[in-house]
């Protein structure tokens, strides 16, 4: 399984992601600098990790979405490639039109760094195969702009096509407003593309893959990917 992690100059969670990927796959991912204009031959999965791509003084991810490497990532996705965007990566995927909606400023207008709980809304995808439907897991979030918004039509389509991957919830699984710290519409924490191969989410499962550093709640995402892509 060949994984490529795209590193923009302001990306800052690429090492966390590389550790999680190596833990699940047994291999170091390829770290691809943003100035590259092609993905390596045989790429199975492209990961856009967290950070501040080009400083994000403009809308988060807006500049990164226009970078040459993102044209390649979009083409890869169009060919049916798997693309995972976490935090800034999710913002970039939305800005690039690979996923619908937008990530607005958090409702509190403050940066939020804390653990959150998420409910698995769509099990059985390449990213969620190792969770049960409705399972609840924990992950840190760390973002200023994680408030997912989609208009009525977009939201209706996501729900109709069952493309919501994760929702913010209480530890017992209830999707309350209190659990929805950034104010995302309909508690949405992560969404999938129609072919289920592109996933974007705000929290950081890659930071919970070791019992020493907060637990292994995030590991199923990576082991799911290994199984799905190995058999692909």
């Amino acid at each position, binding site marked *: 399984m060949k994984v490529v992690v795209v590193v923009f*100059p*302001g990306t*800052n*969670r690429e*090492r*966390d992601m590389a*550790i*999680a990927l190596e833990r699940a796959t047994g291999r170091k991912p390829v770290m691809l600098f943003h*100035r590259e204009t092609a993905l390596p031959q045989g790429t199975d999965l492209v990961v856009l990790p*967290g*950070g*501040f791509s*080009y*400083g*994000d*003084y403009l809308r988060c991810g807006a500049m990164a979405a226009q970078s040459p490497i993102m044209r390649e990532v979009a083409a890869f996705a169009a060919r049916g490639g798997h693309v995972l965007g976490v935090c800034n990566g999710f913002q970039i995927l939305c800005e690039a039109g690979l996923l619908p909606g937008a990530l607005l400023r958090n409702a509190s*207008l*403050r*940066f*939020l*760094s*804390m653990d959150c709980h998420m409910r698995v809304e769509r099990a059985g995808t390449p990213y969620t195969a190792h969770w049960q439907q409705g399972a609840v897991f924990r992950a*840190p979030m*760390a973002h*200023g702009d994680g408030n997912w918004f989609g208009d009525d039509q977009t939201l209706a389509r996501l729900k109709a096509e069952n493309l919501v991957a994760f929702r913010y919830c209480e530890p017992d699984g209830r999707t309350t407003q209190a659990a929805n710290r950034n104010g995302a519409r309909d508690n949405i924490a992560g969404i999938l593309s129609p072919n289920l191969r592109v996933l974007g989410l705000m929290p*950081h499962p*890659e*930071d919970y*893959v*070791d019992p*020493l*550093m*907060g637990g292994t709640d995030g590991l199923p995402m990576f082991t799911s990917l290994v199984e799905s892509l190995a058999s692909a």
Partner: protein
Amino acid sequence: MTQAPTPLDPARAKQLSAEFGLKPDEYDRLLAILGRTPALTELGIFSVMWSEHCSYKSSRVWLRTLPTKAPWVIHGPGENAGVIDIGDGLAAIFKMESHNHPSFIEPYQGAATGVGGILRDVFTMGARPIANLNALRFGAPDAPRMTRIIDGVVRGIGGYGNCVGVPTVGGEVNFHPAYNGNPLVNAMTVGIAPKDRIFLSAAAGIGNPVVYVGSKTGRDGIHGATMASAEFSADAEEKRPTVQIGDPFVEKLLIEACLELMATDMIVAIQDMGAAGLTSSSVEMAGKGGVGIELVLDNVPQRETGMTAYEMMLSESQERMLMILKPGREAEAETIFRKWELDFAVIGHLTDTGRIVIRHKGAVEAEIPLAPLESEAPLYRRPTAETPKQTVLDASAIPDPVGITSALEKLVGSLDLCSRRWIWDQYDSTVGGQTVQRPGGADAAVVKLEGLKRALAMTTDCTPRYCLADPEEGGRQAVAEAWRNLTAVGATPLAITDNMNFGNPEKPEIMGQFAAAVRGMAAACTALDFPVVSGNVSLYNETNGRAILPTPAIGGVGVLEDAAQSVGLALKPGLDLIVIGATQGWLGQSLWLREIAGREEGAPPPVDLAAERRNGDFVRARILAGQVVACHDVADGGLLVAVAEMAMGGGIGAVLEPPPASLPAHAFWFGEDQGRYVLAVADGSALLAAATAAGVPAARLGRSGGGDLVTGPGSSISVASLRAAHESTLPALMEAVG
């Protein structure tokens, strides 16, 4: 041949020298060194280099008395940051630095650039930063602008640290009206480097190129160091142009580019451009190396047009570094900086003249001999006045006005003890994926080293109210508390960085506070094998003549060979609670006395350094033997507050045994005797026996379980109520800001 710079008119020069903060006798020294009236740029260079901020002219005689050596110290004070050996072939590089004055004038940018500056001090030595901490002091929340200042400082620290991708893992905050006009923002960075790849700042190699990298130079922060070396009056807001503007994205690029260059053998010396920017970096690098330096300012990357030599030399624009490269390697180095889209310019070379020569537009704007600029720099042994000793209060003569549980509920919600969650929730504490103990979860932050078992523990500490009452005891306590907090997670404390925040040193009582605090710190450092390896001094923390509380903030670093051995403070059910260390009920300067009895008085609790060491070594050994489930030092608020914090951390109550009849209950529960820890263990009897064998005072406090904290028959409070009181204070305070 250099033609001499054009001197200012003598009368004008003298007048300007005063405006730039030089004293008349200091100006006379300048004249003696130059042998003529200075040019404007020269006057600017002298005034910033001789400012309190850059020269440490009032503090140096005292700082020299601090212990700075230990077998594990690689570089002590004098470099950009301290360097210690932490095993596995690695060094920890760390320092704490103040950005107090700018943070009062412009809280967001002041705090943000404080973080940026301290990060550069650390990565300039070759380290990848792995953690940020801070030590903050704010005024009374109802003081003018104060909630805005709190909001801006917290946003600034978060805004910079979060973007640059270094986790902010710990810190401390106090509130006191003495900081109303002068809040303190002390930022600390800890980084890791191979111990044989440390980069220093002494320039060497005549003819070697002087290279400027990073952001362009603008007109921001001109005379920032001078501003930071004076008191504030009502015109503080007018000094806003002296505050720098930070760009954390460029800092991130600079970190990556510098570390990439440092992996090669091209660098001879490197230093960041911090306070006094291009002036201090070029003067210090050349001065340390005993060489001359010539700069051509036309080559300096500039953000604005028409900048003069004076402006460029004095600018404190952020995210810039100066380095000396090996000859002929410029193009190779430039490739790395271009990759990261940063400016790279050769702006001069080293000379054998022992002078700094500044050229701009074909003219010589400054020519100063470097040796006397340093050796003739003012150095003051200012008069000191000892702080009068305070009375030792008799606890039995102080009645308890409210009862134990009411006092506890009030204390855990008080400003100095309430939850800091509102603050740390705005700092990314997990980026990097190595954070083992996060803010609020333990007495010190623990960050694992990527790919290794080894971890660093880090903390910042100071109890300013003790320092005001007795600066020597307060200095001793600040160092001891840092040592204790590292011990409480199981780490072996190794070294400290200090950030000395005081008032106007020209006042004997302030200089006396400084000297006494250093005395106390030195005693503790020696007794605990805990040397000072770096530090920073911030004086003139006064507004309208009112000084802050003396605040020698200590940043401590310790090591754990196996991160898995660290413990946090959260209580779990079914455990014995044991207090280590003697409890005598010391109420003087306690938070109980201030918050419950409404009195700020008495001598602060003394620190018995021998007992401190014995107790701490005992606790650490038990933690490393795997016998301790949770551990918390007993600090502000005393024993019951410590237990309550453990209970709130775990969401588990405890049933406590009644206090000994020999002490008033409130003195037992809320006294702030030093050198104590509360341990939660499976087998309390075994721990008590071990303590007895080791000659360490220990006593059973009770047993964890249930949802209430029970302090006696009919005396209990639910952990849920405690949490409600503890968690609501800061959010309620800051709600109005939005």
